[in-house]
């Protein structure tokens, strides 16, 4: 309240006034439902996840191996030239430890979300997923991680066919 105004006229509205119907309200919940066509690139990507594989598309001009796949190279603006599998192993590019759920309530177990540059794909290409079997304090940039897949019979062709990525020890050369 500003210094000049000591008191506003009228009654302050309390949430009980709304809940108990003492003030008129109008409620409306939009029925907004969508089913997006996945298209050529995403359909194949999801199909391959069901097979336990990660597929990329390639551009012969800029030589990139692109994942998630697309049917056009956005840099060269031309159709892509082929499909190729990349590994389900990658390197942590960046990560965050999320302590809150979407409704801002505190999670009992935090979620670790990471950008994972996949082996076999071009630089800064990969997947965004959760990390598991690791203490948040142990996560490091450049750490090698591997996909933990759901059993084949539980896969439906979705990004969640991978449960999470877990750290692997790098093999010594």
């Amino acid at each position, binding site marked *: 309240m500003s210094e000049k105004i000591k008191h506003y006229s009228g009654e302050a509205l309390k949430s009980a006034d709304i809940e108990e119907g003492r003030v008129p309200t109008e409620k409306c919940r939009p029925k907004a439902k969508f089913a997006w066509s996945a298209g050529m690139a995403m359909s194949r990507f999801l199909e391959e996840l069901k097979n336990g594989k990660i597929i990329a598309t390639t551009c012969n001009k800029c030589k990139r191996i692109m994942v998630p796949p*697309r049917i*056009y190279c956005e840099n060269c603006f031309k159709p892509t030239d082929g499909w190729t599998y990349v590994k389900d192993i990658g390197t942590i590019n960046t990560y965050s430890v999320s302590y809150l759920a979407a409704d801002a309530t505190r999670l009992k177990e935090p979620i670790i979300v990471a950008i994972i540059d996949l082996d076999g794909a071009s630089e800064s290409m990969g997947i965004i997923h959760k990390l598991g079997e690791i203490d948040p304090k142990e996560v490091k940039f450049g750490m090698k991680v591997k996909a933990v897949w759901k059993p084949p019979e539980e896969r439906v062709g979705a990004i969640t066919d991978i449960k999470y990525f877990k750290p692997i020890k790098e093999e010594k050369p």
Partner: protein
Amino acid sequence: MSEVAIVGVGCVGFRPILPELSYKELMFEAAVKAYEDAGINPRKDVDVFITCAEDYLEGFSIFDEFVPDQLGAVLRHLFTVSGDGLLGLATAYMLIKTGQFDTVVLEAHSKASDILTFMDIVAFALDPILNRPLGGHPYYVAGMEMNRYLHDTCTTMEQCAQVAVKNKKNALENPYAAYGANITLDQVLCSDTWFYPLKKLEISTPADGCVVMVLASENVAEKLTDKSIWVKGVGWCTETPNLETRDWSKTVYTRLAAEMAYKKARIHSPWKELDFAEVNDLFAYKELQHMEALKLCEYGEAGKLTEEGLTARNGELPVNPSGGLLGMGYGLEASGMQKLLEVVLQLRGEAGRRQIPDAEVGLAHAWRGIPTATGITAVLSNVK
């Protein structure tokens, strides 16, 4: 100030459903066609990209963020016009007129088949306190408008039905049309009454498709092509959103949008000076109403002219030679671009079997559908 030209067009669809393509892939295909047509490289030759989309029709918040890749606009200069494609045309026109930008890409699409609850989305545009609680299908708004229009002008149900017959027939010659058909007046009149007096066959059905265009300043256009189509004038207008207080008979929004465009294009007698018109026909009666508001004829005369065949493809002033939205399908925010595409193809002489001989000046008009009262008009010519 530079003149503004359309130098490239690309279209995919329109089809009742394009399940094989994602909206991104749909846009990519239309963009490739448009850039090929204009002879440009989008990664180097475009100053601004404009996409016309409404988040609620896409199912995404901040839809512009999903657009750059498929248009060749990554790390380039893009924004969304949240409205019909012709509002995007008006924006592109203004950008080029400033002299600061030479090449502008314009995109609008419909992936109507991705929307599972289309009418609920339309209903969500109604006033939440005054209108939405009444329930019902939002197209009753069109029924009320048609009823008042027929009452005020003595236009007949037969005359409205004739619009559907004509447009669906025109669409049979248009490869970009989803719903071409040879139907009779009786079939339209005997189709179900859905929103009295509006009949089922007088209502456009949504369709999937995408239109991309390349616009350029005079200097750039003349280097690129000898088939430039010049934007002579653009106008737009919005009436009150209140259903309770708007004019139900005369579509004043379209009249004022037309006057704005005609003034710029120096059109004084539209019926004489325009060779054809692509007019919003989301509902059959809307074509008649909009013709009158566009000054293509006197108020209350459009039905009679249609009945006499003057607006047929071989008539004195063809209206919707493309097949209109009744024939092509309702392309949501791309519906103005469907009109614009036909105007460009006709003026280039590339309209195939539906070509209007010696067409020099054409008009494209859009209305944003139920429950809006927004109209946009553009006048184009193949003569600078």
